[in-house]
């Protein structure tokens, strides 16, 4: 079964709006990471949040982590058409060492 599950599977918004994606996981983690994938390309790392952190910012990105609920959210503020991509959460579990387990992803479409 998937460690990380994203919600929603697909999200369509207008430019300028905020986009929120959620990720839930099952087992204790060392850290949780978010990646972006443009169509037909490799994944690009966006942000990493450690298990002892609750919130992290990077530019227009805001990530929260609630270890008691085993969930994380990624907020993209003031979205742009260039933000159109698939977004994946990935967890590094306490028992898995360096391995990451990816979720199925959220397809974000930002309409101009």
């Amino acid at each position, binding site marked *: 079964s998937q460690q990380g599950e994203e919600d929603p599977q697909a999200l369509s918004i207008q430019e300028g709006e905020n986009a929120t994606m959620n990720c839930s996981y099952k087992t204790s983690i*060392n850290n949780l990471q978010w990646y972006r994938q443009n169509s037909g*390309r*490799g994944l*690009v*790392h966006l942000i990493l949040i450690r298990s002892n952190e609750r919130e992290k910012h990077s530019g227009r990105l805001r990530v929260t982590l609630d270890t008691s609920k085993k969930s994380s959210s990624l907020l993209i503020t003031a979205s742009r058409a260039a933000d159109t991509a698939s977004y994946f959460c990935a967890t590094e579990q306490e028992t898995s*060492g*360096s*391995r990451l*387990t*990816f979720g199925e992803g959220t397809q974000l479409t930002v309409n101009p």
Partner: protein
Amino acid sequence: DAGITQSPRYKITETGRQVTLMCHQTWSHSYMFWYRQDLGHGLRLIYYSAAADITDKGEVPDGYVVSRSKTENFPLTLESATRSQTSVYFCASSGIAGLNEQFFGPGTRLTVL
């Protein structure tokens, strides 16, 4: 700055043939990973390596073989390709477990006829 490269980018082969996908990174990262991504889905780990001559199975290792004789290279071999191995394969590297993100190559799109 090459970073992490994969070759070939596209490959069409037939069932039963042996295929090797290459991955090369220029950062001297310790960790390297192979994932497969099936259409519309997330990534699944095939094999990973913590250092030269150290490899371990991931979630879906059956039908694949890896080696890592040099830190910078991590080839993935499909010993006898099957149609179910049609997928996009991504190689990634990472410097330090638990602290650094993974850096991904551009992927190899493999079709097994």
